[in-house]
Protein backbone atom coordinates (compact mmCIF):
# COMPACT_ATOMS: atom_id res chain seq x y z
CA UNK A 1 0.00 0.00 0.00
CA UNK A 2 2.84 2.39 0.88
CA UNK A 3 4.74 2.06 -2.36
CA UNK A 4 1.54 2.28 -4.38
CA UNK A 5 0.65 5.53 -2.67
CA UNK A 6 3.99 7.14 -3.34
CA UNK A 7 3.91 5.97 -6.93
CA UNK A 8 0.47 7.37 -7.50
CA UNK A 9 1.40 10.61 -5.81
CA UNK A 10 4.20 11.00 -8.33
CA UNK A 11 1.77 10.36 -11.13
CA UNK A 12 -0.69 13.02 -10.03
CA UNK A 13 -1.48 15.51 -12.78
CA UNK A 14 -3.43 18.75 -12.58
CA UNK A 15 -6.53 18.24 -14.65
CA UNK A 16 -9.81 16.60 -13.80
CA UNK A 17 -9.48 12.91 -14.21
CA UNK A 18 -11.99 10.17 -14.64
CA UNK A 19 -9.32 7.58 -15.28
CA UNK A 20 -9.27 4.50 -13.18
CA UNK A 21 -6.12 3.69 -11.23
CA UNK A 22 -4.50 0.51 -12.46
CA UNK A 23 -6.07 -2.68 -11.28
CA UNK A 24 -3.03 -3.68 -9.28
CA UNK A 25 -3.40 -0.59 -7.11
CA UNK A 26 -6.98 -1.40 -6.16
CA UNK A 27 -7.34 -3.04 -2.75
CA UNK A 28 -9.14 -6.17 -3.72
CA UNK A 29 -11.44 -6.18 -0.74
CA UNK A 30 -13.04 -2.79 -1.34
CA UNK A 31 -16.27 -2.61 -3.25
CA UNK A 32 -16.26 -0.34 -6.27
CA UNK A 33 -17.89 3.04 -5.91
CA UNK A 34 -20.06 4.46 -8.65
CA UNK A 35 -18.72 7.83 -9.85
CA UNK A 36 -21.51 10.03 -11.04
CA UNK A 37 -21.60 12.83 -13.53
CA UNK A 38 -24.15 15.45 -12.55
CA UNK A 39 -26.21 16.60 -9.60
CA UNK A 40 -29.16 18.43 -11.06
CA UNK A 41 -31.76 20.65 -9.45
CA UNK A 42 -34.68 21.48 -11.73
CA UNK A 43 -37.10 24.23 -10.87
CA UNK A 44 -36.78 23.63 -7.15
CA UNK A 45 -39.19 25.65 -5.01
CA UNK A 46 -39.68 25.75 -1.26
CA UNK A 47 -42.08 27.86 0.74
CA UNK A 48 -42.34 28.52 4.45
CA UNK A 49 -45.85 29.72 5.02
CA UNK A 50 -46.26 32.63 2.67
CA UNK A 51 -42.54 33.21 2.20
CA UNK A 52 -40.99 31.69 -0.91
CA UNK A 53 -37.49 30.88 0.29
CA UNK A 54 -36.37 29.23 -2.93
CA UNK A 55 -38.15 30.14 -6.14
CA UNK A 56 -37.84 27.76 -9.04
CA UNK A 57 -34.06 27.48 -8.94
CA UNK A 58 -32.28 25.25 -11.43
CA UNK A 59 -28.64 24.40 -11.06
CA UNK A 60 -26.25 21.64 -12.08
CA UNK A 61 -23.18 20.53 -10.20
CA UNK A 62 -20.88 18.67 -12.54
CA UNK A 63 -18.23 16.17 -11.57
CA UNK A 64 -14.78 17.72 -11.73
CA UNK A 65 -16.14 21.24 -11.42
CA UNK A 66 -16.38 23.78 -8.61
CA UNK A 67 -19.72 25.55 -8.58
CA UNK A 68 -20.21 28.59 -6.38
CA UNK A 69 -23.56 29.66 -4.97
CA UNK A 70 -23.62 33.21 -3.69
CA UNK A 71 -26.18 35.76 -2.67
CA UNK A 72 -26.91 38.22 0.11
CA UNK A 73 -28.40 37.20 3.44
CA UNK A 74 -31.81 35.67 3.08
CA UNK A 75 -31.33 34.84 -0.56
CA UNK A 76 -32.08 31.18 0.09
CA UNK A 77 -28.60 29.72 -0.40
CA UNK A 78 -28.56 27.54 2.69
CA UNK A 79 -32.19 26.57 2.19
CA UNK A 80 -31.30 25.43 -1.29
CA UNK A 81 -28.43 23.39 0.08
CA UNK A 82 -30.75 21.83 2.61
CA UNK A 83 -33.13 20.95 -0.21
CA UNK A 84 -30.37 19.28 -2.20
CA UNK A 85 -29.33 17.24 0.79
CA UNK A 86 -32.84 16.37 1.85
CA UNK A 87 -33.23 18.28 5.11
CA UNK A 88 -36.20 20.03 3.60
CA UNK A 89 -38.70 18.57 1.16
CA UNK A 90 -39.14 20.44 -2.09
CA UNK A 91 -42.56 21.86 -2.76
CA UNK A 92 -42.01 21.83 -6.50
CA UNK A 93 -39.26 20.70 -8.79
CA UNK A 94 -36.89 17.78 -8.98
CA UNK A 95 -33.50 16.74 -7.77
CA UNK A 96 -31.60 14.22 -9.86
CA UNK A 97 -28.24 12.54 -9.93
CA UNK A 98 -27.62 11.62 -13.56
CA UNK A 99 -30.85 9.80 -14.38
CA UNK A 100 -31.92 8.91 -10.86
CA UNK A 101 -34.62 10.97 -9.19
CA UNK A 102 -33.81 11.83 -5.58
CA UNK A 103 -36.57 14.25 -4.90
CA UNK A 104 -38.40 12.04 -2.45
CA UNK A 105 -35.31 10.44 -0.93
CA UNK A 106 -34.87 11.07 2.81
CA UNK A 107 -31.75 12.71 4.20
CA UNK A 108 -29.95 9.53 5.14
CA UNK A 109 -30.42 8.14 1.65
CA UNK A 110 -28.58 10.92 -0.15
CA UNK A 111 -25.03 9.68 0.56
CA UNK A 112 -26.04 6.56 -1.31
CA UNK A 113 -26.30 8.75 -4.41
CA UNK A 114 -22.84 10.13 -3.83
CA UNK A 115 -23.75 13.33 -2.03
CA UNK A 116 -21.80 14.53 1.01
CA UNK A 117 -22.03 17.85 2.81
CA UNK A 118 -20.53 20.03 5.50
CA UNK A 119 -22.42 22.33 7.81
CA UNK A 120 -22.29 26.03 8.47
CA UNK A 121 -21.99 25.29 12.16
CA UNK A 122 -19.88 22.12 12.33
CA UNK A 123 -21.71 19.08 13.63
CA UNK A 124 -19.10 16.90 15.23
CA UNK A 125 -19.15 14.21 17.88
CA UNK A 126 -17.34 16.11 20.61
CA UNK A 127 -16.48 13.19 22.85
CA UNK A 128 -14.88 11.18 20.07
CA UNK A 129 -11.47 11.65 18.53
CA UNK A 130 -10.75 13.38 15.25
CA UNK A 131 -10.10 10.00 13.68
CA UNK A 132 -13.36 8.51 14.93
CA UNK A 133 -15.28 11.49 13.61
CA UNK A 134 -13.76 11.11 10.18
CA UNK A 135 -14.37 7.36 10.23
CA UNK A 136 -18.06 8.01 10.75
CA UNK A 137 -18.17 9.20 7.17
CA UNK A 138 -17.39 5.68 6.07
CA UNK A 139 -20.66 4.34 7.38
CA UNK A 140 -22.15 4.28 3.92
CA UNK A 141 -19.56 1.72 2.90
CA UNK A 142 -19.67 -0.43 6.00
CA UNK A 143 -21.94 -3.30 5.11
CA UNK A 144 -21.69 -5.27 8.34
CA UNK A 145 -24.87 -5.76 10.27
CA UNK A 146 -25.38 -5.64 14.00
CA UNK A 147 -24.87 -9.34 14.60
CA UNK A 148 -21.75 -9.45 12.46
CA UNK A 149 -20.34 -6.54 14.40
CA UNK A 150 -21.29 -7.95 17.81
CA UNK A 151 -19.60 -11.22 16.99
CA UNK A 152 -16.55 -9.41 15.59
CA UNK A 153 -16.72 -11.41 12.40
CA UNK A 154 -13.88 -10.94 9.91
CA UNK A 155 -15.79 -8.65 7.58
CA UNK A 156 -16.70 -6.25 10.38
CA UNK A 157 -13.11 -6.10 11.56
CA UNK A 158 -11.83 -5.65 8.05
CA UNK A 159 -14.27 -2.87 7.23
CA UNK A 160 -13.33 -1.06 10.41
CA UNK A 161 -9.68 -1.31 9.49
CA UNK A 162 -10.32 -0.08 5.96
CA UNK A 163 -12.30 2.90 7.20
CA UNK A 164 -9.53 3.69 9.65
CA UNK A 165 -6.93 3.61 6.89
CA UNK A 166 -8.99 5.77 4.56
CA UNK A 167 -9.88 8.25 7.29
CA UNK A 168 -6.24 8.49 8.35
CA UNK A 169 -5.16 9.27 4.81
CA UNK A 170 -7.92 11.82 4.35
CA UNK A 171 -7.09 13.52 7.63
CA UNK A 172 -3.45 13.79 6.66
CA UNK A 173 -4.69 15.08 3.34
CA UNK A 174 -6.64 17.95 4.85
CA UNK A 175 -3.89 18.74 7.30
CA UNK A 176 -5.10 17.21 10.55
CA UNK A 177 -2.69 14.29 10.54
CA UNK A 178 -0.92 15.40 13.71
CA UNK A 179 -4.01 15.44 15.88
CA UNK A 180 -5.75 12.21 14.96
CA UNK A 181 -6.40 11.28 18.57
CA UNK A 182 -7.45 14.69 19.82
CA UNK A 183 -10.97 14.96 21.18
CA UNK A 184 -13.16 16.77 18.72
CA UNK A 185 -14.54 19.25 21.22
CA UNK A 186 -11.02 20.58 21.73
CA UNK A 187 -10.62 21.61 18.12
CA UNK A 188 -10.52 25.19 17.00
CA UNK A 189 -12.82 26.51 14.32
CA UNK A 190 -10.67 25.82 11.28
CA UNK A 191 -9.83 22.33 12.47
CA UNK A 192 -13.53 21.58 12.92
CA UNK A 193 -14.26 22.70 9.40
CA UNK A 194 -11.50 20.65 7.86
CA UNK A 195 -12.54 17.64 9.89
CA UNK A 196 -16.03 17.90 8.45
CA UNK A 197 -14.53 17.95 4.98
CA UNK A 198 -12.51 14.83 5.76
CA UNK A 199 -15.63 13.15 7.09
CA UNK A 200 -17.52 14.13 3.96
CA UNK A 201 -14.76 12.67 1.82
CA UNK A 202 -14.91 9.40 3.75
CA UNK A 203 -18.37 9.02 2.26
CA UNK A 204 -16.44 8.68 -1.04
CA UNK A 205 -18.83 11.09 -2.66
CA UNK A 206 -19.25 12.15 -6.24
CA UNK A 207 -20.41 15.55 -5.02
CA UNK A 208 -19.52 17.45 -1.89
CA UNK A 209 -21.59 20.42 -0.83
CA UNK A 210 -19.83 22.91 1.43
CA UNK A 211 -21.96 25.27 3.52
CA UNK A 212 -20.02 28.50 4.07
CA UNK A 213 -16.71 26.68 4.54
CA UNK A 214 -14.66 29.88 4.68
CA UNK A 215 -16.66 31.41 7.50
CA UNK A 216 -14.43 32.39 10.40
CA UNK A 217 -11.19 31.28 8.75
CA UNK A 218 -8.01 33.31 8.60
CA UNK A 219 -6.37 34.30 5.32
CA UNK A 220 -3.93 31.45 5.61
CA UNK A 221 -6.66 28.94 6.36
CA UNK A 222 -8.77 30.14 3.44
CA UNK A 223 -5.75 29.59 1.24
CA UNK A 224 -5.46 26.00 2.51
CA UNK A 225 -9.17 25.50 1.97
CA UNK A 226 -8.84 26.72 -1.60
CA UNK A 227 -6.00 24.29 -2.29
CA UNK A 228 -8.02 21.43 -0.85
CA UNK A 229 -11.14 22.26 -2.84
CA UNK A 230 -9.14 22.52 -6.05
CA UNK A 231 -7.59 19.15 -5.31
CA UNK A 232 -11.08 17.70 -4.86
CA UNK A 233 -12.06 19.02 -8.23
CA UNK A 234 -8.95 17.64 -9.84
CA UNK A 235 -9.81 14.22 -8.48
CA UNK A 236 -13.13 14.36 -10.27
CA UNK A 237 -15.44 15.32 -7.41
CA UNK A 238 -18.13 17.90 -8.09
CA UNK A 239 -18.03 20.67 -5.49
CA UNK A 240 -20.81 23.10 -4.61
CA UNK A 241 -19.75 25.97 -2.38
CA UNK A 242 -22.32 28.14 -0.69
CA UNK A 243 -20.43 31.21 0.39
CA UNK A 244 -20.40 34.79 1.52
CA UNK A 245 -16.75 35.32 0.69
CA UNK A 246 -17.28 36.32 -2.89
CA UNK A 247 -13.55 36.80 -3.54
CA UNK A 248 -12.90 33.22 -2.57
CA UNK A 249 -15.72 32.04 -4.79
CA UNK A 250 -14.69 34.02 -7.82
CA UNK A 251 -11.11 32.87 -7.46
CA UNK A 252 -11.61 29.12 -7.49
CA UNK A 253 -14.99 28.39 -9.03
CA UNK A 254 -15.58 27.25 -12.57
CA UNK A 255 -19.17 28.44 -12.54
CA UNK A 256 -21.12 30.71 -10.22
CA UNK A 257 -24.82 31.04 -9.55
CA UNK A 258 -26.21 34.07 -7.76
CA UNK A 259 -29.45 34.02 -5.80
CA UNK A 260 -31.47 36.92 -4.52
CA UNK A 261 -34.69 36.58 -2.55
CA UNK A 262 -34.90 32.95 -3.58
CA UNK A 263 -34.58 33.54 -7.28
CA UNK A 264 -31.60 32.95 -9.51
CA UNK A 265 -30.47 36.22 -10.95
CA UNK A 266 -27.26 35.29 -12.75
CA UNK A 267 -25.42 32.17 -13.72
CA UNK A 268 -22.11 31.92 -15.54
CA UNK A 269 -18.37 32.09 -15.21
CA UNK A 270 -16.91 34.08 -12.34
CA UNK A 271 -16.01 36.86 -14.76
CA UNK A 272 -19.52 37.08 -16.14
CA UNK A 273 -21.14 37.05 -12.71
CA UNK A 274 -18.88 39.54 -10.99
CA UNK A 275 -19.42 42.04 -13.79
CA UNK A 276 -23.16 41.57 -14.07
CA UNK A 277 -24.98 44.83 -13.26
CA UNK A 278 -27.84 43.08 -11.44
CA UNK A 279 -25.41 41.20 -9.20
CA UNK A 280 -23.51 44.36 -8.45
CA UNK A 281 -26.71 46.20 -7.60
CA UNK A 282 -27.89 43.44 -5.30
CA UNK A 283 -24.62 43.26 -3.42
CA UNK A 284 -23.94 46.94 -3.19
CA UNK A 285 -27.52 47.67 -2.30
CA UNK A 286 -27.74 44.88 0.25
Amino acid sequence: MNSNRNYRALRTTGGPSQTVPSASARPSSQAAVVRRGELIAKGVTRRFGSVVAVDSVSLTVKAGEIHGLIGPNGSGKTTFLNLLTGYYRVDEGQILVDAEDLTAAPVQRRPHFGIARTFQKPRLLGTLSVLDNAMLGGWEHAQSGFLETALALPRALREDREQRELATELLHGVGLGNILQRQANLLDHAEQRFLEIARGLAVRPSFILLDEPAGGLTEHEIEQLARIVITLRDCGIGVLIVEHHTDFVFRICNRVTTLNLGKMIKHGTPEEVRNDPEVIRVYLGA
Partner: protein
Amino acid sequence: MLTAIITGLAMGAIYAAAALAYNVMYSTSKVLSITTGHIFMISGVVGAFLIGGLKLPIVVSLLGSAAAGILFGLITEIVAIRRVLSRSDEHLWLLSTLALATIFQQAVGLWWGTEPKPFPRLIPQQFTSGIWDQKFWLPIGTVAVSVICLELFYRRTLFGKIFVAVSEDAFAARARGLATDRVRAISYGIAGLLGGVAGFAAGQLTYAYFALGLSLTLNGFIALAVGGLGSNLGAVVGGVVLGLLTSIATYYFGGAYQQTIAVGLLLVFLLVKPEGLFGDKRTRHV
Protein backbone atom coordinates in the same frame (compact mmCIF):
# COMPACT_ATOMS: atom_id res chain seq x y z
CA MET B 1 -72.30 5.82 36.09
CA LEU B 2 -72.78 9.46 36.97
CA THR B 3 -70.19 9.05 39.66
CA ALA B 4 -67.84 7.67 37.08
CA ILE B 5 -68.37 10.71 34.89
CA ILE B 6 -67.90 13.15 37.72
CA THR B 7 -64.80 11.29 38.90
CA GLY B 8 -63.51 11.38 35.37
CA LEU B 9 -64.07 15.12 35.13
CA ALA B 10 -62.38 15.73 38.44
CA MET B 11 -59.36 13.59 37.62
CA GLY B 12 -59.39 15.15 34.19
CA ALA B 13 -59.18 18.55 35.78
CA ILE B 14 -56.06 17.48 37.67
CA TYR B 15 -54.49 16.04 34.54
CA ALA B 16 -55.36 19.25 32.74
CA ALA B 17 -53.68 21.26 35.47
CA ALA B 18 -50.55 19.17 35.09
CA ALA B 19 -50.64 19.66 31.33
CA LEU B 20 -51.03 23.39 31.85
CA ALA B 21 -48.05 23.38 34.17
CA TYR B 22 -46.04 21.59 31.49
CA ASN B 23 -47.07 24.25 28.99
CA VAL B 24 -46.14 27.14 31.22
CA MET B 25 -42.69 25.72 31.91
CA TYR B 26 -42.17 24.65 28.33
CA SER B 27 -43.07 28.04 26.95
CA THR B 28 -40.04 29.75 28.42
CA SER B 29 -37.53 26.94 28.56
CA LYS B 30 -38.43 24.47 25.82
CA VAL B 31 -38.08 21.85 28.51
CA LEU B 32 -40.63 19.28 29.65
CA SER B 33 -39.83 18.77 33.29
CA ILE B 34 -40.32 15.40 34.92
CA THR B 35 -40.85 17.21 38.21
CA THR B 36 -44.21 18.56 37.00
CA GLY B 37 -46.34 15.95 38.72
CA HIS B 38 -44.20 16.09 41.83
CA ILE B 39 -45.01 19.72 42.43
CA PHE B 40 -48.68 18.76 42.76
CA MET B 41 -47.79 15.87 45.01
CA ILE B 42 -45.69 18.01 47.34
CA SER B 43 -48.40 20.62 47.66
CA GLY B 44 -50.94 17.98 48.53
CA VAL B 45 -48.69 16.48 51.15
CA VAL B 46 -47.78 19.86 52.59
CA GLY B 47 -51.44 20.83 52.71
CA ALA B 48 -52.39 17.65 54.52
CA PHE B 49 -49.56 18.18 56.95
CA LEU B 50 -50.41 21.80 57.66
CA ILE B 51 -54.08 21.15 58.27
CA GLY B 52 -53.92 17.71 59.78
CA GLY B 53 -50.54 17.77 61.48
CA LEU B 54 -50.05 21.39 62.49
CA LYS B 55 -53.76 22.09 62.75
CA LEU B 56 -53.45 25.38 60.91
CA PRO B 57 -56.48 27.14 59.44
CA ILE B 58 -57.51 26.19 55.94
CA VAL B 59 -56.58 29.48 54.34
CA VAL B 60 -53.13 29.51 55.90
CA SER B 61 -52.59 25.96 54.77
CA LEU B 62 -53.66 26.87 51.27
CA LEU B 63 -51.09 29.64 51.26
CA GLY B 64 -48.55 27.19 52.61
CA SER B 65 -49.29 24.73 49.82
CA ALA B 66 -49.11 27.45 47.23
CA ALA B 67 -45.81 28.59 48.66
CA ALA B 68 -44.50 25.04 48.60
CA GLY B 69 -45.54 24.72 44.98
CA ILE B 70 -43.85 27.96 44.00
CA LEU B 71 -40.75 26.98 45.92
CA PHE B 72 -40.40 23.63 44.23
CA GLY B 73 -41.11 25.14 40.86
CA LEU B 74 -38.29 27.58 41.43
CA ILE B 75 -36.00 24.84 42.71
CA THR B 76 -36.65 22.95 39.51
CA GLU B 77 -35.63 25.91 37.43
CA ILE B 78 -32.60 26.93 39.42
CA VAL B 79 -31.18 23.50 40.08
CA ALA B 80 -32.21 21.35 37.19
CA ILE B 81 -32.73 23.73 34.29
CA ARG B 82 -30.60 26.81 34.46
CA ARG B 83 -27.14 25.30 34.53
CA VAL B 84 -28.10 22.56 32.20
CA LEU B 85 -29.61 24.65 29.41
CA SER B 86 -26.32 26.34 28.74
CA ARG B 87 -24.66 23.05 27.93
CA SER B 88 -24.90 21.75 24.44
CA ASP B 89 -26.09 18.29 25.40
CA GLU B 90 -29.72 18.17 24.50
CA HIS B 91 -30.88 15.50 26.89
CA LEU B 92 -29.20 16.64 30.02
CA TRP B 93 -32.31 18.38 31.31
CA LEU B 94 -34.19 15.11 31.08
CA LEU B 95 -31.65 13.55 33.39
CA SER B 96 -31.52 16.48 35.78
CA THR B 97 -35.28 16.78 36.13
CA LEU B 98 -35.52 13.02 36.49
CA ALA B 99 -32.94 13.12 39.26
CA LEU B 100 -34.69 16.00 40.99
CA ALA B 101 -38.06 14.27 40.71
CA THR B 102 -36.57 11.18 42.30
CA ILE B 103 -35.14 13.27 45.10
CA PHE B 104 -38.51 14.98 45.70
CA GLN B 105 -40.39 11.71 45.70
CA GLN B 106 -37.98 9.82 47.91
CA ALA B 107 -37.57 12.69 50.35
CA VAL B 108 -41.32 12.93 50.77
CA GLY B 109 -41.49 9.17 51.08
CA LEU B 110 -38.93 9.20 53.83
CA TRP B 111 -40.57 12.06 55.70
CA TRP B 112 -44.26 11.50 55.11
CA GLY B 113 -44.27 7.75 54.67
CA THR B 114 -45.12 5.59 51.71
CA GLU B 115 -48.77 5.03 52.49
CA PRO B 116 -51.43 7.26 50.95
CA LYS B 117 -52.90 9.37 53.73
CA PRO B 118 -56.30 11.01 53.59
CA PHE B 119 -56.50 14.72 53.00
CA PRO B 120 -58.64 16.64 55.47
CA ARG B 121 -62.00 18.16 54.62
CA LEU B 122 -61.79 21.75 53.50
CA ILE B 123 -65.45 22.71 53.58
CA PRO B 124 -67.86 21.25 56.10
CA GLN B 125 -69.76 18.59 54.19
CA GLN B 126 -71.19 15.17 54.77
CA PHE B 127 -69.25 12.24 53.35
CA THR B 128 -72.46 10.93 51.82
CA SER B 129 -72.81 13.77 49.34
CA GLY B 130 -72.20 11.48 46.40
CA ILE B 131 -71.53 13.28 43.19
CA TRP B 132 -71.72 16.65 44.87
CA ASP B 133 -68.83 15.83 47.13
CA GLN B 134 -66.24 18.57 47.29
CA LYS B 135 -63.49 16.16 46.40
CA PHE B 136 -64.80 16.33 42.86
CA TRP B 137 -65.82 19.96 42.65
CA LEU B 138 -62.85 21.52 44.36
CA PRO B 139 -60.44 20.36 41.67
CA ILE B 140 -62.86 21.09 38.84
CA GLY B 141 -63.59 24.56 40.11
CA THR B 142 -60.01 25.38 40.99
CA VAL B 143 -58.64 24.32 37.66
CA ALA B 144 -61.37 26.15 35.76
CA VAL B 145 -60.55 29.34 37.63
CA SER B 146 -56.84 28.74 37.07
CA VAL B 147 -57.28 28.41 33.33
CA ILE B 148 -59.17 31.69 33.20
CA CYS B 149 -56.56 33.42 35.31
CA LEU B 150 -53.79 32.08 33.10
CA GLU B 151 -55.46 33.29 29.95
CA LEU B 152 -56.09 36.71 31.45
CA PHE B 153 -52.49 36.82 32.57
CA TYR B 154 -51.16 36.09 29.11
CA ARG B 155 -53.48 38.44 27.31
CA ARG B 156 -54.13 41.33 29.60
CA THR B 157 -51.07 41.89 31.70
CA LEU B 158 -47.74 43.27 30.58
CA PHE B 159 -45.96 40.44 32.28
CA GLY B 160 -48.01 37.93 30.41
CA LYS B 161 -47.15 39.53 27.12
CA ILE B 162 -43.49 39.41 28.03
CA PHE B 163 -43.96 35.71 28.57
CA VAL B 164 -45.45 35.23 25.18
CA ALA B 165 -42.59 37.19 23.66
CA VAL B 166 -39.95 35.09 25.35
CA SER B 167 -41.67 31.86 24.43
CA GLU B 168 -41.94 32.77 20.79
CA ASP B 169 -38.42 33.98 20.31
CA ALA B 170 -36.10 33.94 23.27
CA PHE B 171 -33.19 35.28 21.28
CA ALA B 172 -35.06 38.32 20.05
CA ALA B 173 -36.47 38.91 23.50
CA ARG B 174 -33.00 38.92 24.98
CA ALA B 175 -31.89 41.29 22.27
CA ARG B 176 -34.61 43.68 23.36
CA GLY B 177 -33.33 43.60 26.91
CA LEU B 178 -35.62 41.07 28.54
CA ALA B 179 -33.94 39.02 31.22
CA THR B 180 -34.88 35.59 29.92
CA ASP B 181 -33.37 33.85 32.93
CA ARG B 182 -35.64 35.73 35.27
CA VAL B 183 -38.68 35.31 33.07
CA ARG B 184 -38.04 31.61 32.96
CA ALA B 185 -37.68 31.41 36.72
CA ILE B 186 -40.92 33.29 37.16
CA SER B 187 -42.71 31.00 34.75
CA TYR B 188 -41.55 28.01 36.75
CA GLY B 189 -42.81 29.77 39.82
CA ILE B 190 -46.18 30.26 38.15
CA ALA B 191 -46.31 26.60 37.21
CA GLY B 192 -45.47 25.86 40.82
CA LEU B 193 -48.29 28.13 41.99
CA LEU B 194 -50.67 26.28 39.71
CA GLY B 195 -49.45 22.97 41.09
CA GLY B 196 -49.65 24.27 44.62
CA VAL B 197 -53.24 25.41 44.45
CA ALA B 198 -54.48 22.54 42.30
CA GLY B 199 -52.63 19.96 44.37
CA PHE B 200 -54.22 21.37 47.49
CA ALA B 201 -57.70 21.37 45.98
CA ALA B 202 -57.34 17.86 44.63
CA GLY B 203 -55.94 16.37 47.80
CA GLN B 204 -59.15 14.72 48.86
CA LEU B 205 -59.40 12.89 45.58
CA THR B 206 -55.79 11.90 45.17
CA TYR B 207 -54.85 11.46 48.81
CA ALA B 208 -51.55 12.71 50.12
CA TYR B 209 -49.33 10.11 48.55
CA PHE B 210 -45.65 10.25 47.75
CA ALA B 211 -45.91 8.21 44.54
CA LEU B 212 -48.52 10.51 43.05
CA GLY B 213 -45.83 12.60 41.44
CA LEU B 214 -44.69 10.08 38.89
CA SER B 215 -48.20 9.02 38.01
CA LEU B 216 -49.25 12.63 37.52
CA THR B 217 -46.14 13.39 35.47
CA LEU B 218 -47.08 10.58 33.13
CA ASN B 219 -50.80 11.26 32.99
CA GLY B 220 -50.29 15.00 32.70
CA PHE B 221 -48.01 14.24 29.80
CA ILE B 222 -50.64 12.05 28.16
CA ALA B 223 -53.13 14.88 28.48
CA LEU B 224 -50.54 17.19 26.95
CA ALA B 225 -49.81 14.87 24.05
CA VAL B 226 -53.48 14.43 23.32
CA GLY B 227 -54.23 18.12 23.52
CA GLY B 228 -51.10 19.31 21.84
CA LEU B 229 -47.95 20.81 23.26
CA GLY B 230 -48.21 24.54 23.62
CA SER B 231 -51.98 24.80 23.66
CA ASN B 232 -53.79 25.56 26.91
CA LEU B 233 -57.12 24.68 25.39
CA GLY B 234 -55.55 21.41 24.33
CA ALA B 235 -54.33 20.81 27.87
CA VAL B 236 -57.85 21.13 29.22
CA VAL B 237 -59.41 19.02 26.48
CA GLY B 238 -56.69 16.42 26.76
CA GLY B 239 -57.08 16.22 30.49
CA VAL B 240 -60.84 15.84 30.33
CA VAL B 241 -60.62 13.20 27.59
CA LEU B 242 -58.07 11.20 29.56
CA GLY B 243 -59.97 11.51 32.81
CA LEU B 244 -63.29 10.49 31.33
CA LEU B 245 -61.80 7.66 29.31
CA THR B 246 -60.05 6.00 32.22
CA SER B 247 -62.94 6.58 34.57
CA ILE B 248 -65.58 5.15 32.28
CA ALA B 249 -63.36 2.27 31.26
CA THR B 250 -62.78 1.48 34.91
CA TYR B 251 -66.52 1.56 35.47
CA TYR B 252 -67.11 -1.03 32.78
CA PHE B 253 -63.99 -3.17 32.94
CA GLY B 254 -62.68 -2.72 36.44
CA GLY B 255 -59.62 -0.81 37.51
CA ALA B 256 -57.01 -3.42 36.71
CA TYR B 257 -56.02 -1.91 33.39
CA GLN B 258 -56.35 1.76 34.11
CA GLN B 259 -52.82 2.70 33.19
CA THR B 260 -52.92 0.52 30.11
CA ILE B 261 -55.98 2.28 28.79
CA ALA B 262 -54.45 5.66 29.42
CA VAL B 263 -51.35 4.65 27.56
CA GLY B 264 -53.41 3.16 24.80
CA LEU B 265 -54.93 6.57 24.28
CA LEU B 266 -51.48 8.10 24.20
CA LEU B 267 -50.27 5.60 21.67
CA VAL B 268 -53.19 6.23 19.36
CA PHE B 269 -52.50 9.92 19.36
CA LEU B 270 -48.77 9.61 18.96
CA LEU B 271 -49.22 7.34 16.00
CA VAL B 272 -52.00 9.22 14.30
CA LYS B 273 -51.60 12.83 15.33
CA PRO B 274 -48.34 13.31 17.22
CA GLU B 275 -48.77 17.05 17.48
CA GLY B 276 -52.04 16.56 19.39
CA LEU B 277 -55.44 18.03 18.77
CA PHE B 278 -54.47 21.68 18.99
CA GLY B 279 -50.71 21.61 18.75
CA ASP B 280 -48.64 22.98 15.91
CA LYS B 281 -46.31 21.04 13.68
CA ARG B 282 -42.83 22.43 13.79
CA THR B 283 -40.22 22.22 11.06
CA ARG B 284 -36.63 21.49 11.94
CA HIS B 285 -33.86 23.84 11.03
CA VAL B 286 -30.39 22.79 10.09
